[in-house]
């Protein structure tokens, strides 16, 4: 493991546990692998996601923080910007070099000064405000645009499922 990346992650972890941010919980899966974290993101209030606790894994590359981590939801979730396999498509997780969607401004993208906390906060706001122009999940985007009621119903069901209801 990359010693530099591990030290940086250790620092971020201490920061996270000592200054808790509401709705965000994250930490390494095990003590011997700091490059893989699991996290919980609370569904933002006043959205269909409210009340849910969405679990995800964060996988850090060896050259972290030069390259962004990879975020993947491990629970069932319907969202226009989340691929069906759970991988999140959000500008903060894209390195500044490549712009697959050709619309993100550089300032929105990954930079070494971003952190786990900022990534998770961005994901939280992504849940609240989907960007249906860059559909990672085409069906969800279509449903979000055309049949909002059904979309919200499914999302509410997913949210209830995440807390075991």
């Amino acid at each position, binding site marked *: 493991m990359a010693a530099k990346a591990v030290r*940086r992650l*250790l620092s971020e972890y201490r*920061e996270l546990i000592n200054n808790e941010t509401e709705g965000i919980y994250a930490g390494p899966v095990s003590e011997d692998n700091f490059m893989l974290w699991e996290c919980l993101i609370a569904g933002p209030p006043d959205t269909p996601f409210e009340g849910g606790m969405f679990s995800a894994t964060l996988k850090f590359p*060896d050259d972290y923080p030069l390259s962004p981590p990879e975020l993947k939801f491990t629970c069932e979730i319907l969202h226009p910007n989340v691929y069906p396999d759970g991988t999140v498509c959000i500008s903060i997780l894209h390195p500044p070099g490549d712009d697959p969607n050709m619309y993100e401004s550089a300032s929105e993208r990954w930079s070494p000064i971003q952190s786990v906390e900022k990534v998770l906060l961005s994901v939280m706001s992504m849940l609240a405000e989907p960007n249906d122009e860059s559909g990672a999940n085409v069906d969800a985007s279509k449903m979000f645009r055309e049949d909002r009621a059904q979309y919200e119903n499914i999302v509410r069901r997913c949210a209830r499922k995440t807390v075991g209801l």
Partner: protein
Amino acid sequence: MDADFPDPTDWIQTPVPGLQALETSLRCQVCKELFTAPKVTSCGHTFCSLCIRRCLSASSKCPTCMKPDEEPRLRDNIVVSELVSSFNTIRKSLLDTLVAKEEARKQAEEEAERDSRTRPKAEKRSSYDLDDDEVMEDAEPVHRPQAKKRRRQDTTTLRKPQETEPPRRSTRTSSQRTNSRAGSSQVIAIPDSDDDDDDFQPIEESSESEFQSSSRAKRKSASRAPDTPTKDSDLFACPLCNRRKDQSTINPHVNRCIEGNRSPSPTPGPANGASSAGTPLRRQPATFSNLSRSQHRAPYTVEEREKLRLPKGNASLAKEADIRKKLRDHGIRCDVKGKETKQILWTRLQEWTNLWNANLDSDNPKLKHVLIKELEAYERSQATQKHSVVQDKDFEREAWSNTHKPGFDALIANARNTVSRKKENGTETSETSDSAAGAKAELNGMDSPEVVEV
């Protein structure tokens, strides 16, 4: 690991949590460590020399504001460098002092609370009835009147703080001062509860136990304060070390200074700060003190830096032979297997350039062989990418490999058979022997992801 891992959040538990913000701004936003050889970009953001060089190699933008920037435009941030070095020297003692103070305060609070609960009961009971507290108090019968007396003295000195404050400043060191402040805040708290002497005792006792040294110092100063006014004007500065001594000690002190030049100059005030501005830069960070001297050299001068600085070069213009030559000139190995040798060598040269240039900026530069080792370690750390796979945390590798071992053994035996059969047939064997070797490797690396997917 936590013990030797200082972090800004350490300050949250102290009485001055605002220090967290101070330390955060003394840390590089990329590596989250205290700045090492801080460099300021043309847009005004500061990073460690190595961090910003690596970032700019990856993408030529400032990590904070994304403005385009390049390495030659980086400048030393001398003030930050001095700040970090002086902060680093006081960090541990400052933290220890503050934590101790906070703990003492909590303990005193608990004690006061416990006392306020037990005291009324004790008063109602008859004098024959001894509870633990009273036994403890009676254990030091001689001590008690003293404590009372001292407390009164303290309150008298506290009532006229403006009279006692100046001599205190001049006669005591800063650590004593902080301690005595902690002690005096203790005493200030007392008049709030009651004016009756008896009520103060346990608190006085607790402060006696915790602030033994400080209250002793206080006692000393309190008794001395009225009759020995050691004003600043009564002190003479030693011509050699600038330390201020009183009349009786100045002569022996000057003699000692002349003989051994033993005493280092005191912390520079604003006047002589400018003359010694270079010294904090040269001070070695605490982390390096454990390393042997042979790994480091004296800091590079500005001229040396300019002369030795390695250029970045251009990936598309550079030829592989040139890259190899450059690496070999620095004594770095060039043995690269597989495809895209140029890419690998180029990355290696870039990382070497970053390490080398950042080392030139360091206050405590490492020798070349140490740097080469670091380069190798860095490459190794970057090569493990494929092993860090997302895996179920409950997955038991041991059990899994035990249950599936027969299957792998059979596979290996199978592969060996094929090889030997093909050898007998005299056909081309390279392909199958490869597969046999592969199977073997898989068994050796039982926990590798490929095996899991078989």
